[in-house]
Each structure stands twice: as C-alpha cells, then as structure tokens.
C-alpha cells in the first residue's frame, strides 16, 4: 500500500489508559529523538504500566508514526542553519574527536555568522558532535594524552624514526594538539633518554623488545578504546550534554556507595602505590581522562593494603553484573582491567581473579535453595562469564592478569582461551569462545540437575523450567531437550507427581523423543502407578506412536506396549532379551505364565491368551520377524470385530436416550397413546398424536411393551392418508424401541393390515427391505425375517454396550481359528483347512507330533457331545503333542513340561464349563511354548 493511500488511524475515544499513554508518550518520543528502538522500549514499559492492551498500543504507535514522530523543532532558523553548517563541517574534517580547535572554530562561526550566543553555540556544537558520534576532548586532556603517547611509544629510544614521528603527528592532529607541542614532547623525551645510563647490549635488546611489545600493547589498547568509543552504538549518554572523557565528578554511576569502601578523597597530587613503576604511574595518569571512575578510586588502588582492591574487584564485578547500562558497564570493565593490570602483588592478583570468576559456577546441591535463588545463580553464572571474558579480552595480551584470568576461565568452562586465540582470528575468536564456554557451562548446569534429580527429584522438578529458560539460548534446541528428557525421566520415575507442573516442558520434549527415549517413556508407563503420570504418558505416547485416539484406554495401552516391545527388540536384539522383555512388559502375560491361577474365562481373555500363545510359538520357532509383526499388530478386541462385522448401519437399540424424559414427556406420551387408542378420534388427530410421540421419542430409551402393543396396533391399522403420511414421516424416529420391534413380531400373525402397508411398517421400523413370500406361510417367513433382523441388531447393540458379554463366543471361534492358522503357517503345514476349528487343531497336532494316531481322534469323536466339546478334546491332544515335542527337543526342561501337563490335567478334571476348558487349553499351550522359548 502506498503511503498516500495509507488509511488514516483514528484512535478510539474514551479510553483513559490510551489518553494517558498518548499524553505521556510525547515527551518520551521527543527525548529519544523519534520513534526508535529506545523510545519503543520505554513506550512499551509505559504501556505495560498502564495495562494498555496490545491492540491499543499498536494503534497508538501507528498513530505516532502517521502524525509525525519527530519532536517539534525547537531550533530557530539561525540555529538550524548553524547546525546544518556544523554537521557538514565536522563530516568534512573526517575527525572522530571534537578537538578544542574544532570546537573553537565552531564557536567563532556560530557567534559571528549566525548571531548565536557562546553558550547556545557550544550547546549546539555538543549536540551535533554527539549525534555524529564524536568524543569531546579538552586541550589539556589532549596534550596529556599526546605526552603519554610520545613517552610510551618512544620508550627508551634515543632516536625517533620518521614513521613513528608521522604517526605521532597524525595523532596530534586528530586530538587537536599543536605539532610544535608534540615536537617539544618528543625532543624532551629523547633528550632524557640520552641522558639516562646506557644499558648493556643484552639488556638493551630485551628492553627494545619489551618496548616494542609495550608500544604495540599500548597502541592496541588505545586503539581498542578508541574503536569502542567510535563504533559501540551503545556508548550513548542519556544526557543532552556531550559526555566528557574527563574524570567524572558525577558519582551516580559509581559501582558502590561510599559507605561500602573506605572514604575516598580525591587528593592532589594523586598518591602512588609504593610498588607502582613509573610506567604504571604514567599509564594511570594517561588513563585518567578516559577511565571515568579512576580518580574516584585512585586511593583504593594506591593503598598499600590490597584488601580494598580485592573488594573493589568484587564490587565492580557485582555492579557490572547487576547493571544494564552498557556505558556504565563499560566504565566498570575499564576500571576492572586497569585494577588488574596495575596490581603489583601476584597473590592479590590471584585473589582478584578468583573474585572475578567465582560466580562462573554451578550452584551447589542445597535442599533449601529456592527457585528464584536458583534462577539468579544461573543468570549470574553466564553474565559473570561474559564479563570475565570481556575483561580478559581487554587485558594486555602478555600480562599476568590475562594469563591468570585465562586460567581461571579455563578452570570454570574448560575452554582454553590461549589455544583458541592462537588458531583463530580475533573476530572468529570472540565468536568462538562465548558459545563454547556457555555450552560447557550449560552442560554443567544440566549435570547439576541430573544429580539433583537423583538426590532430590521433587526439588529438581521445581528447577527444570527455570534452568531450561536460562539455557534456552546456550545450547542448541535438540541437545537441550535431549538432556532434559533424560532428566525428566529420572524425576518422574521417582517423583511422578511432578508431572503436574512439568507438563509444559515435558509435552515438548516427549514430542521429539528419539528411539531410545520412546522406550524409556514406555518403561516409565509400565512401571509407574501414578494415575496422572499414566494418563499423561498414555496421551503422549498415543500421539507419538500414531495410535488411534478413538480406541479405548486398555487397547491404547496394549498397542503402546506392543510398539515399545517391537522397538526394544530392534534395539537390543537377541533371543533371550526379547523373550524377557516380551514377558516383563506385559504384566498380565508374565503373571499368567508364572502363576498357577486361572483368569476369568471371558471370550476376550481367551482370545488374548491365544494371541500370546501364537507369539510364544513364533518365538520358540525362531520366527522373530513374524513375532514382531504379530506383536506390533495385535488383534482387535472381539467386541470391536463383532461391531465391525455389522454390514450396515445398526439401530440404536439399548442405547441410553440422548435426553432424559421428565414428567411432562411421560404425560405427553401417555396422552398421545390414549388418543391413538381412541377409535372415535379423527384420523388427523391421531396423526398429530403420532407426531407428538415422535417428538419425545429421543427421551425414552424404550417404552413399555403394553404401550408398544398399543402403538403397533395403531400403526398396523392406520388407513387414512393423514395417518399414513404421519407414519411414513415419523416412524423412523421410533426404531430404537426394542419393545416396538417385539410388538410388530407379536402382532404379525394376527394383523389384518394390507400386505403393502405391513411391509411399509416393517421397512420403516427396521430400516430393512422385506419381500412377501408367495407361499401360504408368508407370515411365518416374514416373522423369521423380522426375528433374524432384530436378533442381529440386538447382538450388535449388546456388544456395543458391554464388551464382556455372552455373545462373543462365535467371534472367539473365528479368532481361535485364525490363531491356529497362524500357528500352522509357523510350522509350514500344508493344506490348512478353513473354518473348522477342530480340524485345524488336529492338523496342527499332526504337524507337531507324529506319535498321535487317528484312533485318538476316533475316540474323541465318539466321546464329544458337540463341536465345542470335540474342539476341547482335540486341544488336549495338541497339548500332549506339544509337550512331547518340547520335552524331546529340550530334555533339560522335561521336569517343567511335566509339571505344566500335570497342572493341566488336574484343572481339566475340575473345571466344568466350556469356557474354562477353552481357557485352560490355550493357557497351557502358552505356558508350554513360553517354556520352550526360555529353554532355547
């Protein structure tokens, strides 16, 4: 959108918070000279304090942007002209320092050409210089610095080369110092050098080298300060006045109150520490203009006792860590560097380094540690590292403090700064160290959390979130989450209730869990008894393993178990490990195998046991791939199969009514039925009554049989168009009434209704089509059809309502056939019969053991009272064959096999129901095949 076409923002009226924000935002924008990052931050803070909604805040900012963000121009026409001239002038000189000379020229120009007062001209010069990023240096300061530069760079030389001289001249020019003055310094220093005692050859060479090093150091130091001053965008004063490099008398920026240290009196002349060298003294004096806090703490530095200086380091470090003003922080860093560099006592220096670095550490295990205190420690650790590194970088490369600090940092972070510096460029180095060191520290914090998770899991649970927040930008996301995942596993294993407050982080890490950790979460689900944790783990693992969320909890758990086991088998491999895990990961299975108790003989239990039996058989035959496939794809519950087998949409028989019937609904139903029963009532009234019944039908799960009879009588006898239309329209809403279906069957033989009407009623009520038989007994045929339809529907409704019902035995038959077919495939049996369970068992028996003969089956056929009995007897033959085969193959477990067979015989003689016998057979096979697995 073009600017001209930009829609004008209209602020909503009447919002006191917005009005207040607009009122107070103006000065901020003006003070910050427009809508920039700083002003935005302040405005954000203001908005927060006023609880201004984000939408209004954004609107207001847009309003400011459209209405002009610049503060109103307070300059007069002449002032504006002067500022323009001065900006151009200073840019043209390409100076980075506002020297006295430049300032003086500006003042002259401002007063003479633009009729400004001296003060106003100076004010404007300072403002422009600040905007252009120029530092202001007094002539005295500049001369002092040049003097220092001359002495430092010439050192003890008696002859000055031209290159150095040129460089000093350029420096003088930059600082606004007369060339003659610099020449004077040079000549004076050279003369003094000449007058000094001439050192020996070796010493001279050493001195020369040292001088060169010092010179380079000083140059680099000066250059670094210079560069920082030039390029650091954060070096910006809030004051309108140009910040002076001169020692500040403003103590507001002092890192500590005067009461914290011995009273400091700025003394003239500055006292010196007895061990300070001349170079140090000169350096300190030279640094006074640029190191703002130096004069303030001069006496501390010069004191003979080192305690004050150690305290100074401690306080400067604390202040630098606490402060957020970069300028102040920079000043503290400079003083820290200087304090370290001039420290004459190596032992004190070590103490100072320790003061500077002791926070770069992980907090100790402490059960009383609070979460806020931990967060502070964490923040201090990383900020201390950054500060120490900044100090280290600023320190002279060859100095002892730098070496000691490098060692201190190495001790804390395990990053060798010197090694790093030797291979990388400076820029790369600075980029390299902090991430390396911070990664090391982050790992230490995670180690700490790991230990804590072991010792005090509840406290560790409290610390996870703050530590994660603190480390979020120190380690890459993946590494951090991986470590946290391990820690969470430890915490939740021992303190499962911690899941309640760990969910935000746990949700994220588990979603990205890798193979190993998925197994670990699965283990946790298997072992924990905590309901909340189980629930959370189930939900997460269902998502993670892509399990259907519609399934019931038990089935979900079963699928999770199977997938976890399958993954474990992939991971670990090995027959025995696989069997062990297969057994241990299914509590019910392991209990069944180890215990002599029999579980409830429900159809589903038998199906499950048969399924595990097939898995055990596959394992015992070394068919691991098939085992894994069987385990990963467990059979659906029988009830689900029964429902799924329904070929069409089923009626809602036996379902609870979606709405509860109240007294009024009962009254409506009763009255409407009374109308239907009244033969004197007009057909249209009866049709209306049927409509009223259908309107309340979803409030009744079923009706009384007498009511259903009455209603069916009306339905079958209805003749008028009004009634028939109403029936066609409304009867479908009454399909869920089982009693009505029964009433239709009941009246079928006696009704005199026309056949087409009767068929319509049948179709509307059952949602199925019927045809009338041509034979005389068409009523019986129709009744059979209706009974078959209703029986089928009712079965499905029963199964849907209760998965543990008595109508799943047919499904179990089919399931056991499937299992036996699988077993036959495992033994590579040819000619697998279909859908004849007994025949399947016998084929399996024949495949397992050749010792059995047809006479046994002849005997079973003779004895069996029905097909199920025959299957149970065949199952016993199979058990016998399996036991013999296993015993022959594994004589070492013969005793165990005999024990299982005896157990089977004892129970088979006691149990008196088909279901128990079926269960016993399948359980015995499971025990036998599991024993075979373990023996292999």
């Amino acid at each position, binding site marked *: 959108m073009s600017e001209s076409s930009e829609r004008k923002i209209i602020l909503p009226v009447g919002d006191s918070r917005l009005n207040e924000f607009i009122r107070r935002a103006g000065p901020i924008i003006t003070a910050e000279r427009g809508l920039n990052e700083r002003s935005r931050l302040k405005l954000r803070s203001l908005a927060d304090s006023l609880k201004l909604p984000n939408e209004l805040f954004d609107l207001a900012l847009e309003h400011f942007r459209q209405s002009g963000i610049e503060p109103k121009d307070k300059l007069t026409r002449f002032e504006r002209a002067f500022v323009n001239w001065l900006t151009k002038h200073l840019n043209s000189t390409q100076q980075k320092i506002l020297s006295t000379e430049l300032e003086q020229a500006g003042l002259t120009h401002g007063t003479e050409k633009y009729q400004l007062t001296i003060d106003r001209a100076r004010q404007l010069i300072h403002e422009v210089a600040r905007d252009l990023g120029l530092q202001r240096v007094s002539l005295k300061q500049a001369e002092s610095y040049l003097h220092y530069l001359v002495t430092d760079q010439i050192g003890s030389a008696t002859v000055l080369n031209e290159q150095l001289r040129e460089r000093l001249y350029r420096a003088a020019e930059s600082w606004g110092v007369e060339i003659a003055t610099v020449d004077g310094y040079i000549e004076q220093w050279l003369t003094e050098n000449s007058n000094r005692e001439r050192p020996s050859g070796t010493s001279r060479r050493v001195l020369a080298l040292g001088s060169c090093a010092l010179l380079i150091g000083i140059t680099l130091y000066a250059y670094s300060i210079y560069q920082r001053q030039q390029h650091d965008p954060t070096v910006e004063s809030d004051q309108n006045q140009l910040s002076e490099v001169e020692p500040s008398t403003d103590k507001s920026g002092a890192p500590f109150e005067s009461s914290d240290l011995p009273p400091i009196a700025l003394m003239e002349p500055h006292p010196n520490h007895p061990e300070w060298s001349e170079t140090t003294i000169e350096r300190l004096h030279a640094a006074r203009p640029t190191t703002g806090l130096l004069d303030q703490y001069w006496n501390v530095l010069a004191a003979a006792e080192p305690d004050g200086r150690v305290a100074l380091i401690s306080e400067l470090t604390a202040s630098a860590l606490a402060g957020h003003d970069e300028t102040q922080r920079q000043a503290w860093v400079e003083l820290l560097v200087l304090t370290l560099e001039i420290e004459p006592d190596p032992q004190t220096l070590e103490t100072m380094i320790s003061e500077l670095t002791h926070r770069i550490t992980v907090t100790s295990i402490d059960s009383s540690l609070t979460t806020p205190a931990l967060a502070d420690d964490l923040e201090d650790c990383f900020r201390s590292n950054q500060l120490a590194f900044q100090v280290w970088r600023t320190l002279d490369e060859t100095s002892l403090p730098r070496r000691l600090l490098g060692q201190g940092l190495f001790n804390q972070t395990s990053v060798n700064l010197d090694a790093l510096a030797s291979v990388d460029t400076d820029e790369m180095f600075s980029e390299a160290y902090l991430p390396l060191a911070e990664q090391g520290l982050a790992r230490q914090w995670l180690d700490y959390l790991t230990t804590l998770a072991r010792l005090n899991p509840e406290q560790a649970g409290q610390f996870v979130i703050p530590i994660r927040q603190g480390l979020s930008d120190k380690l890459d996301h993946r590494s951090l989450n991986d470590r946290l995942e391990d820690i969470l596993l430890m915490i939740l294993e021992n303190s499962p209730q911690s899941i309640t407050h760990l969910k935000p982080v746990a949700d994220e890490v588990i979603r990205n869990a890798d193979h190993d950790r998925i197994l670990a979460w699965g283990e946790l689900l298997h072992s924990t008894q905590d309901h909340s944790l189980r629930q959370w783990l189930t939900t997460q693992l269902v998502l993670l393993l892509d399990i259907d969320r519609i399934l019931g909890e038990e089935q979900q758990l079963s699928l999770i178990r199977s997938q976890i086991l399958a993954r474990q088998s992939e991971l670990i491999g090995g027959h025995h490990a696989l069997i062990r895990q297969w057994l241990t990961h299914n509590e019910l299975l392991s209990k069944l195998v180890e215990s002599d108790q029999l579980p409830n003989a429900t159809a589903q239990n038998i199906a499950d046991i048969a399924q595990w039996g097939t898995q055990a058989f596959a394992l015992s035959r070394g068919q691991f791939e098939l085992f894994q496939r069987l385990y990963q794809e467990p059979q659906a519950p029988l009830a689900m199969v029964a429902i799924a087998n329904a070929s069409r949409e089923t009626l809602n028989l036996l379902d609870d009514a979606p709405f509860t019937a109240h007294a009024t609904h009962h009254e409506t139903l009763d009255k409407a039925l009374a109308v239907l029963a009244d033969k004197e009532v007009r057909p249209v009234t009866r049709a209306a009554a049927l409509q009223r019944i259908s309107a309340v039908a979803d409030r009744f799960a079923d009706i009384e049989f007498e009511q259903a009879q009455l209603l069916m009588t009306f339905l079958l006898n209805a003749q008028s168009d009004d009634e028939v239309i109403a029936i066609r329209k409304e009867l479908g809403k009454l399909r869920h009434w089982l009693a009505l279906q029964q009433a239709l069957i009941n009246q079928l033989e006696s009704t005199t209704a026309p056949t087409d009407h009767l068929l319509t009623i049948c179709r509307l009520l059952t949602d199925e089509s019927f045809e009338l038989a041509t034979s005389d007994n068409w009523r019986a045929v129709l009744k*059979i059809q209706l009974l078959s339809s209703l029986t089928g529907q009712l079965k499905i409704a029963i199964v849907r309502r209760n998965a543990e019902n008595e109508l799943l035995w047919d499904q179990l038959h089919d399931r056991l056939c499937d299992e036996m077919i699988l077993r036959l495939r495992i033994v590579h049996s040819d000619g697998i019969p279909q859908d004849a369970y007994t025949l399947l068992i016998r084929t399996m028996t024949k495949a397992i053991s050749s010792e059995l003969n047809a006479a046994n089956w002849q*005997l079973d056929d003779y004895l069996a009272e029905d097909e199920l009995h025959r299957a149970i007897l065949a199952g016993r033959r199979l058990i016998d064959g399996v036991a013999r085969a296993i015993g022959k193959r594994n004589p070492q477990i013969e005793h165990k096999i005999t024990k299982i067979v005896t157990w089977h015989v004892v129970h088979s003689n006691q149990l008196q129901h088909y279901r128990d016998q079926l269960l016993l057979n399948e359980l015995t096979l499971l025990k036998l095949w599991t024993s075979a697995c373990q023996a292999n």
Partner: protein
Amino acid sequence: MSSKLIHGLIVGSAALASCLFADSVAGDVAWLKNSQQSQPMSGLILSVSTDFVEFLEFNAGRDLNKIAIPKSELVRLVKTIDPQSLKALSPSSPEGYRDSAEILSSYPSDAYAQYLAKRLYFLGAYWGRGEIRLSCFRGMISLCDDEALERRIRAVAFQNDPDRDPAWLDEPVSPSTKISNGISVETTAIALRLRADQLMLLSKIRNRAYLDAFQLLESIERQADRVIELGAKELVQEFETIRPILKQVVAEQQVSPEQWVFLMSLEIALLSERPLGQRWNSLMIRDQPDFRSLTIESIAEFPPERCFFLNGEWLSEQPGPR
C-alpha cells in the same frame, strides 16, 4: 483263594435259594409277615440276636436302610452273602472281583446283587490288567443303565485296549431303546406338540404372560423328558439348549437383551425347522458335558484306592493319622 471262597459260598447259598425263590435273588433276603410286597426284602443281614435281626435293606438307588426286624415278624430269613468273604477280596487278585461280579450280575432283578456286581467289576477293571480289565469293562457296560456313563466306559475301555478294537465305540444302547427299539409313534407325536408348545411359550414370554409361561414350560419339560426317556434326544435338542434360559426367564419374569437373542434364535429355529447349529454362542449355554479325563477312576462314583467293604457298601478308607 478268596474268590473260590465266595464263589463256593454264593453258589451254595444260591442253590438253596433257587429252590425257594426261582433264582431271582442272590443277596440276603427276608420275608415278613403281612407284607404287601410280593418280593422279599433284599439286602444284607448284619447281625441276628435273640429277638431281632438287624437288616440292611437295599433300596432302588444305592441307599442302604438299616432296620431291626423282630423275629416275630419274620417268615423266613436266608443268608447268602458273607461280608467277610467280600472283605477278603484283594487287589492282588483282581480276577476275584471279576468272578464274584459275574455271579452276582446274573441276577438282574436283584438290585443289591447288581449294585455289588457293578462295583466288583469296577474294582476288577481298576486292579486288573489285560483281559481281566477288558472283561470287567464289558461287565460294566452290560450292567450300565446310563447312556452317558456307558459311553464313557466304552471310551475308557477303548483307550485301555491295546488293539483299539473299534467295537468298543459302538453307540450305547439306552434302556428305553432296549425296550422300544426305535423312535415310537408316541415320540414323534410328543415332538410335534413340543414345537407348537415352545412357540406358544415364546409368545407368552413376549406378551409378559409369565404365569401361563410357567405352566407351559413345566408341561414342555415333562414332554421333553419323556422324549429323552424314549431315546429321541435329538428331537428336543433345541429345547435342551435353551432350557436353562427359559427356566430363568420364567422364574425371574423378565428377559434381558442377551436372553432375547437366545429366545429369538430358538424361535427362528422352530419356525424355520432348522437346528440351532453348532455355533459357540448356543453351545455355551447348554448343560456342560463331563470334561474329566478318560481315566478308570472317572467311571465310578468312588475312588478305588484302599477300597473296602463295610456295612454292605464299598467304601474308601479315610486317611487317618499315621
């Protein structure tokens, strides 16, 4: 030795008795004065005192009724069984059991002799081997009056026959069949009425007429029992399958959805004249068969181990303190 003893004893007694009672009894017998029964009391004389005879009367079943008969009431008392000789039979000579059983089993109208014979055959089968065992099985089969038990004895015998003679597995001949030798006209008539009555019963249940249903069910049960008695069990197979549910529904006067499924299945079977079939849902609700293993122990009502004869019965010694 013992078998010879008892054999001689029984034969001697029988010779005497046969003169008097046309060889219809083999046990101890007592005739009472003024008795309305044509047959003497059958059982075992326990003791004889001056005034009384302590007698163990054997009833139709296996119960033994101990009575003291005043001598003044006795017309005649014949003692043919020596309990001591029965007690003397030993597992080490299983043929003794068989031989005694064979003699006793030759008196089909003497219930007590039949009782003793069955047990003696059983003990002979249990302790005997080879042909002795197999002959005992044959004896048991010949005396068996229960079809299911006979089937079981035959199966056990087949299992114990090294030759696996398939003749063992012939269909049992039920007592009624033995009598009528086939499905009678009466059976067919009852079966037809049963079908109509069952449909009526289901209609009554659907109409919640439980009192009528109760009476009708009783009638149906009687008819079914009669059909079974007549040896045509297959004609009432559907009813027998659903019978437990029908009884429960009528007794509780309510039908659960699950029960409706079974009742309607029966109704479909009756209307379509097709059997319910061998689906497991239906089979599960049937009376359950005997699941015990085919061991010899499973064909007798008492354990043969340490079995002894006492007070007219074969009993198992109770384990006492050692």
